[in-house]
């Protein structure tokens, strides 16, 4: 191999790449657009805060004199908050037909119909309440139903407890007349009769007193971590189509420019061209990845951990190089079927974007249908990007990363070797043509 020739290819390719508007678009603009859209549209700065539902209420319990009635219910709806955010934006309707019309049109997330006698029934028995679950968008339907169910459950518990306490107060007052004062219950650990009744009735109202606490990994709840995940998604997506383009057009661009014959007539060998173009491709992909990381961290607010003293972080960088080599190799294999630079580029973009979307690189695997997750499980680029995420977003150690590293290394070697075979075959075909 001749270093001066390899260097000449690197310099030439970098100049041609960064002077091409189309290349700049695909390398910088396209991933930037996706990343900014993710940061400010799909995961906006308000993401993670509780949602406020738009609900309608029809109150037929207007004349009630009960201490808890339809008006009280509406007041509770208006005052309910979660983490300082109002749970409901309430709109009162005169009749159910108008409210249902608005739910059907997607103007409301849900609605309540409070029947006449609601207040009296709550005090003396069981009150009926009609709850309608709507959907302003596909994503909000499930959330709306959960919030409405949770609210009613909470309200039920609250009212039950108040009724229990009220009942116990009466029992305490009147039991003195009919029950011995020191009566204890042996099966309940000889507790006093009154204590036993209190616990028994609270248990009837709410058998399980569950307390919920957020102990989810920060990665899934913090916007910055979500954006860190997506930043490497953008890198993975761009690596896929750009790497495929670099590999698939390696020989055909020179053939179409007419320069291939002149290159082959020079003392430089086809191996010099392969090495030079691969290295320039890796530099291009490296620059592209660095730009995406900067965009992810600064304007978007992604959390990416980096410490030069952490071997896992260097392993992540090597993973990035390996996945680039692998994708360039796959691109060279594509050159066997693409006859022109344009068709090679188009094929690479389509295949790259498709793989990014269906193989768990841009969208999380959990979003994909089960059969599609299989592809994500066997695609080495997904292993690599997930490995990089685990190190640079979630803080995985080098030891944790090592199995992924070895698998990606093997995949990169195999893909590139097959790619070299395809490249040599393509060159022979072009020289004869």
């Amino acid at each position, binding site marked *: 191999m*001749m270093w*001066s*020739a390899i*260097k*000449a*290819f690197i*310099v*030439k390719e970098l*100049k*041609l790449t960064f*002077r*091409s508007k189309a290349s700049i678009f695909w390398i910088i603009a396209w991933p930037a657009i996706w990343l900014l859209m993710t940061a400010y549209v799909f995961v906006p700065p308000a993401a993670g805060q509780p949602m406020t539902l738009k609900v309608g209420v029809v109150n037929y319990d207007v004349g009630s004199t009960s201490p808890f009635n339809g008006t009280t219910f509406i007041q509770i709806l208006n005052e309910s908050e979660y983490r300082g955010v109002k749970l409901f934006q309430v709109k009162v309707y005169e009749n159910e037909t108008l409210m249902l019309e608005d739910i059907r049109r997607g103007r409301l997330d849900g609605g309540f119909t409070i029947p006449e006698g609601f207040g009296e029934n709550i005090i003396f028995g069981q009150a009926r309440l009609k709850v309608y679950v709507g959907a302003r968008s596909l994503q909000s339907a499930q959330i709306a139903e959960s919030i409405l169910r949770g609210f009613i459950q909470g309200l039920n518990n609250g009212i039950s407890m108040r009724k229990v306490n009220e009942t116990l107060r009466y029992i305490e007052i009147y039991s003195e007349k009919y029950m011995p004062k020191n009566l204890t219950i042996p099966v309940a650990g000889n507790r006093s009769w009154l204590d036993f009744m209190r616990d028994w009735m609270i248990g009837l109202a709410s058998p399980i007193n569950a307390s919920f606490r957020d102990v989810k990994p920060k990665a899934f709840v913090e916007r910055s971590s979500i954006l860190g995940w997506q930043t490497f998604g953008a890198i993975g997506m761009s690596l896929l189509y750009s790497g495929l383009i670099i590999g698939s057009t390696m020989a055909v661009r020179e053939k179409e*420019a*007419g*320069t291939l*014959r*002149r*290159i*082959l*007539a*020079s*003392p*430089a*060998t086809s191996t*010099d061209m392969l090495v030079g173009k691969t290295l320039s491709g890796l530099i291009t992909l490296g620059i592209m990845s660095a730009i995406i990381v900067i965009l992810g961290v600064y304007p978007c607010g992604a959390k990416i951990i980096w410490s030069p003293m952490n071997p896992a972080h260097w392993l992540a960088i090597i993973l990035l190089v390996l996945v680039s080599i692998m994708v360039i190799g796959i691109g060279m294999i594509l050159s066997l079927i693409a006859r022109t630079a344009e068709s090679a580029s188009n094929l690479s973009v389509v295949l790259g974007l498709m793989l990014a979307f269906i193989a768990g690189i841009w969208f999380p695997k959990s979003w994909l249908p089960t059969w599609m997750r299989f592809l994500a499980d066997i695609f080495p680029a997904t292993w690599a990007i997930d490995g990089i995420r685990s190190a640079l977003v979630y803080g995985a150690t080098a030891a944790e990363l090592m199995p992924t590293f070895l698998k990606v290394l093997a995949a990169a070697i195999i893909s590139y070797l097959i790619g070299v075979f395809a490249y040599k075959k393509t060159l022979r075909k072009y*020289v*004869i043509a």
Partner: protein
Amino acid sequence: MAADVCLMVRDVSKRFGDRVAVDGVSFKVHGGEIYGLLGPNGAGKTTLLSMIAGILEPDSGEISIDGLNALNPRTRRRVGYCPQDPIVYDNLTGLENMMFYAGLHGLSGGHVKRRCRELLDQMGLGEYAGRRVKTYSGGMKKRLSFAITLIGDPEILLLDEPTTGMDPRIRRSVWESILRLKEEGKTIILATHYMEEADELSDRVAIMDLGKIVAEGSPEGLKNRYGPKAVIDVELSKPAIEPEAMIEKIKPYASGDGVMYGDGKLRVHVDDPDIVSPRIVSELVRMGVGLKTLKITTPTLEDVFLRLTGRRLIGDDVERH
């Protein structure tokens, strides 16, 4: 030639599918010589040059440069190949194109840029060195392509149709450059379909047709051996109405079948011009064809090609007469 043989082509053949591009070609080129490969498009010149340049491997036969196989990468350092089209990178500047090919020739260091600028100056491109090639004219690109060929200071230059598409003034300046390179001791293989170019520049010429060399020798030798004694060129005052009938009437006065007509010009191969020319004039007058000029000239390589192949070269195409 007294100099040693520096290029030897022996019984070389190349076929692409059913088509035979080069068919058992053999020749030798001596050091410091300009060797012309003359023939129409499709004669096999570019394929032959590609094999000499080491781009293509012959199906059979042998090509050696100073005793080394042409496919050996070491021989490529000694060869400069200038392809037919001005193939350069449009989005690089002239200087960047030169620097790229300098790298491919193993040249590095500070002197390379100087050498590139010198070559660009020689080709009259010095002041455009920093401009992107996409702003160059076709002629400028061709000159840049020619300058690139010289970047590695090769001993042997393979020039494939170096002046195709150039206007006469630039073509003449490229010819001067080629002759200057010969004076510097370069060996030049010049593939061309321009008879005049081969005649003017070549020490020896191989006439190629359908993949074979049909004749080889110095231009003068070929003309003496295969050409007519003289040629009568007649320019008609207006194009002939029935050219085929006119050719048939003139044929008895011609040497062999040497009568050609095109673009209002009649060309007749003759052995005794003094006797034949008045008769040709009379015949034309009798046919009602007006004459503008009549010239008696010496034969060219085009006349040799006609005699050898029965066909005539016009521009890029071959025409039967």
